[in-house]
Structure formats: C-alpha cells, structure tokens
C-alpha cells in the first residue's frame, strides 16, 4: 500500500535495490512494474526503454539533470530518503518538477515517515511509500498538518503575499 493523491491505494510497483554483488550492468530487472535505480537505467537503457512498465529512482546524491532527456518516458519517478535527516531529496523533487517539468507520479521511498509528508508534498511528491513498520493510516495524517503556508515551492506556486490580501498595521505607531 502507498499513499497517492492523498489516499491510501494498492501498489503494484516493486523497487529494485542493488545488492552488494550486483552491478548496474548485471542487475536483473524482473518482469512486471519495476522502479530501477538511476544507474541501472543508465546502464541498461537500450533494453529497458523497450518496456512500458519501468520507473526509475534517484539516490539522494544523484542529479535529476541526469534524467533530462528521458524524464518523460517514465510514469513513476521515485526519490530515495536513506535517512529522514537527509534533506537532499526535497531539492531533487523540486528540480524534477520545477526545472525538468516532470508531470508523472513522484514517489518518496526509503525512510519516509509521517512528519516529513507535509513538506514532501509541497516540493512536488504526490506519492509516498511510508516505512513498512509504521501504520500507513497514521502516516497519511501528516499531509494535513497545516492549512496555510507562507512561501512558494512547487506547491503552492504563489507565496501567501501573492495569494491573499494581508492586513497591514491599521494602528501604525501605537502599541497595544
């Protein structure tokens, strides 16, 4: 199960993670819907791009720009959070959406916990695979922690001061 578009849905993608003995060239990509590491995509691009059921995931130290020419081939792109304290994935997501114009599913995988979800959806993630040891029903609550935000990111595109008419100081000069 994953969270997608703010609801809990069944998921039939598997995420391929390389084992120690694997190389990007030698890794076997099973049939069915598979999200492969960026390195595997790059190494096996010729064969993999024949398949329609391939997604790709980026590690937190990888550059979204490496997918530039290919980005629209994928219906799923995932970003891995090796530790929840590793915040590079937020900038990767922002760049995928805002700079590369990626429109498909953008999924957060790895150490994904309830309290990150609000931020993640704002930088462009619309799908979340919370850590399997936690209840997904709890995790989804993280999406609605706040009903208003100040600054622009991928979502919303406009900062608060461009979205609303905020009040200035009507009693300028006096202190209550």
């Amino acid at each position, binding site marked *: 199960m994953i969270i997608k578009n703010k609801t809990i849905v069944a998921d039939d993608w598997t995420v391929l993670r390389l084992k120690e003995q694997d190389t990007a060239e030698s890794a076997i990509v099973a049939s069915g819907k598979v999200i492969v590491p960026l390195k595997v995509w790059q190494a096996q691009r010729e064969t993999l791009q024949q398949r329609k059921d391939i997604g790709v995931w980026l590690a937190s130290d990888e550059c979204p720009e490496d997918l530039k020419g290919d980005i629209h081939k994928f219906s799923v792109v995932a970003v891995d959070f090796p530790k929840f304290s590793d915040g590079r994935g937020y*900038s990767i997501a922002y760049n995928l959406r805002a700079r590369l114009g990626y429109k498909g599913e953008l999924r957060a995988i790895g150490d994904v916990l309830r309290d990150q979800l609000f*931020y993640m959806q704002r930088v462009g993630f619309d799908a979340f695979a919370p850590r399997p040891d936690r209840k997904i029903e709890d995790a989804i609550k993280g999406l609605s922690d706040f009903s*208003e935000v100040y600054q622009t990111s991928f979502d919303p*595109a406009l900062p608060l001061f461009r979205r609303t008419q905020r*009040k200035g*100081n009507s009693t300028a000069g006096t202190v209550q």
Partner: protein
Amino acid sequence: MYRYDEYDQQIVDERVKQYRDQVRRRLSGELTEEEFLPLRLQNGLYMQIHAYMLRIAVPYGLISSKQMRMFAHIARKYDRGYGHFTTRQNIQFNWLKLEDTPDILADLASVEMHAIQTSGNCVRNITSDEFAGVAQDEVVDPRPYAEILRQWSTFHPEFAYLPRKFKIAISGGKEDRAAIYAHDIGLAVTKNTQGEVGFRVLVGGGLGRTPIIGSEICEFVPWQHILTYVESILRVYNQYGRRDNKYKARIKILVKALGVDEFRRKVEADWADLKDGHGTLTSDEVNRVTSFFVDPSYETLTDHDPRLNEFKADSRSFSNWLSCNVKPHRIPGYAIVVLSLKKPGEAPGDATAEQMEAVADLADRYSFGELRITHKQNLVLADVRQKDLVRLWQESTEHELTTPNIGMLTDIISCPGAEFCTLANARSIPLAKVISECFEDLDYQHDIGEVTLNISGCVNACGQHHIGNIGITGVEKKDHDEWYQVSIGGAEGNDSSISKIIGPSFTFNQVPEVIQRLIHVYLRERTETECFIDTVRRIGHAPFKEHVYATDFVAQEEKVADKHSVESAQYEIPFYSPRF
C-alpha cells in the same frame, strides 16, 4: 512591532497542535527517541544534562512587554524562576519537563510567539541589529526585511533537513551590530547610488570548529530579489553541502571547498529561472510589513536636558551608567538604554522572573511597551525620553539592571557551558562569574575601556569566542579536567577578525590571572587613543604571549581554589546552579 494576522496565528496554532501530537507519540513509544530527535530539534527542544532545554524564538530580538511577561510566567510555572537570553537574541529555559512543552508552546502562541526552528538543521531565527530603527547611523531599517525573511523561512519545505544548522543575520546600519560576517548568510541592507534599496550578501561566515569570516557573494541584490536569491543559496547548499561529517557540514566548508567564485556561479545558475518569478517580493508586501515598524508617537523634544547634567555631576554611578549604557538615538530628546544582564557574580544573560516583569513594566512606562534582546545577552529599551533617564536609572537599579559595563570587560558573552550542555568540555558561567568579580572595580574597568571577552565551553563556539577581543574556549583533555584555551585579536562589526590562540591551555583557576596579565600588557603598551583590540593589532601577539607565560600560576591557583571547588561539573551534580 510586527503583529500576527489570522494567517500567522493559524500557522503557529497548528504548529502547537502538530507538536503536541508528536510529544504524545513520543511518550506513548510510537516514536523512537531517534525519530523524535529531529522533530523536537526543529522546535528548539534539547535534552541536556539535567532536564530538557527549550529555546524560544525572539524574531530579530524584538519583544513586547506582554511577551516578556509571558517569559516570566513560563519561568515561574514550568522552570525554576529564571531564563537565559542567548547570543542569537533568543531565550532558553533550562529545567523543563517534556510533557509540559506543548502547554508552553500554547502559552507562547497566545502572545504571538513560538519556538519554530530554534534548533535543528534548518534556517534558524533571523537575527538583527539591536538598535534597528533607532540608530543614528542607520541606512535602511532592517526589521521589515527580517520579518519577511522570518516568514519565508518558517516551515520552508525544502530546507528543513539541511546538512547542518543555518543562521542568517541582517543589519542596516553603517556599523554592523549583528555580526553579519560570522553568519552562514550575512545581509547588509543598504542603498545604491540611485537610492534603491538592496542587499550586500555575504556567505559562508561562521564560528564553531572552523571559524571563517563570510565572503561577499553579491555586492547588491535589489530588494525584490532577496528571497529568491537566498533560496538559491540554500538550494545549492542543500544539494552539495557535506553530510558525511557534521563538523564539515556548514556552508562555510562548502564555500571554501568550491571557492567563492564557483559557489557564486552555482547560485546564479540556480537563480536564473527564479529571478522575477513568483517568489519575487512585491512592494505591497514590503509596505504592509513596513507599516508595523513605523515610528512610535515621538514627542518633539531637544537633546541636552539641563537636569540630566546636574544629576550627572552629583552622581558618579549615574554618570558612569550614562556614558556606558546609554546610546545616542536618532530622534532628538530620546536615548537608547541598554539594561545590563552582566552584574558581576551573576550568570551572563540570566534574568529572573521578577526582573522580566520589572523590565516589562519599565518598557510600558518609558519605551512604548517594547524591548530588544541583544546578541551580547543584554536588554534594550530603545525609545526612552532623555528626561526620563534619571527615574529609569533609579528604578532599574532596584532590579540590578544598571551595572555600567556595556562594552566593558565584564560585559562577558558566555554560553551555558558544561553545567547544562552535553557538548561542553568545561564550565562557562562560573568562569564568567569569577572573571567579572576579579574586574569588578569600575574605575579599573573604565580605565581599561572597551574590550570584549567571550567564553565558549567547547569548540562549537556558542559563546562566539572567535570574535571576542579575548576569547576563552573549554577544551578536552584526557584527564577529564577542565582546560581553557585563551585567544586574542578577535572582533565583530565592520572590522571583524578571528582571534588566535596565545599558547598552551590553562586551568579554570589560572584564567582570571591570564586575563589580568593580558590587560597588563595592554595598559603598558597602549597609546592614548587605543582600545585593547587596536593595541593587539598594532603590536601583535608576541608581547602578550611572552608576559602571560613568563611566570607560573601557583599562588593564584591556591587563592581561587579556596573559593570554589574545581571538580568538573560535567561528570556529577554541579556545585553551582544559578539562583537556588
């Protein structure tokens, strides 16, 4: 000052709710301590030696009397009757229970305050000039921009899990009073030759293990673009800053590794498509926020109240206070008053609940109900009529807030040190107390003149020892005793510099004598107009070093050892705990 509208209030209220639930999940075991740690740290909650410490944000150091009274309430209800003002213009409470912290945040929210991002690897409280809006040398009032940056950085979704903490300071005077050279981003709001407002942007300054003075990355960013420009700096840092070693993770290391030119190139490349985008500031928004920082209703007055001069002639104490703690104001007939939290023998920056209530009352009566917290851990009444100075002095003296030592040797900056902090190698506050008692004689202090002395209990440099004219650092040695490195030559402001260590480290009891010896060399060598730092810069370290190490310290050690135990507090219950 800035007042919350319904959006600000809603965000802070929802934060209290979110945090309350996080604490509930921690207490029920649903969250492990490891998982709770970054969450509580985003909220200023540290687990220290004895209890939880909560750091509350005082945005750019500006606070109302009502908010100060809330601090007094928190001190009484949840803590041990006092609080500690910090070098980043915040306040810390050191003796809290985890289960009380959601209620404290709710109390704070009721007076438009919070503890958001006061710790953790995120953008911290924006600090600024404690004399903003009233300084004579001000070019542009930095407060509206500090508030705009506060809102921009609050819960920024992309920059909550940076490689390391991130500190922004902003100043708007000709003289930098916000230590902008010692911040991850230092902003000087200024005007170009056409009179347009913009920012000189410094990046990669910082203290800690690797003290570095910030480098200029852009000479002038027009005001419209400051948010997007800062966003690009943060995005470059978030992607490329080191995460393998927390001691190499600050932006200064990245700027140094790439070189400022390459760093600038990356920032400009990121910024190219943001410039003029939706994040660009509008004049409507700047005007809206600026409307909260217009002048209070000043009276038309003149300088040089004759009664002031009379009283000055009669009272030496008042005259000392006037020359040290009262600063010129841009409006005739008004003055800026610095209330000293550095009474010799007290912990620097500590204030009791009674003092907090007293200063709140003073602010209401004499300074339009507002106060500022300085990065030197004192308090400021920014808008006092000169004709009220005598009464204000008399009343604040009753609360021990008029020690005439602002800018003097006993105006010591100190971190909490090993008594409270798990990082510290050595105690800071007791050392500050011993040193200030040593130099308590005001005539002597005034003869020495301006000198800054900053103490940190470890290399993390919360006490900003690198930019003190004299810096003291607690260092670790094998035998678990407390040792202190002494350095000289540091400075903040327009002529910022990083101090250099004078030689092998000292014991707790030797340090006051070391300071005496440093001062002795200065008094011996100075020319008529020189401050301590000027003499150090002119004659170099050698004469100081030579004199300090020329003779041993045995006698002094015995003398001080009679007054205090020298057990390192880090490994047992401290022998000194403030105020009880």
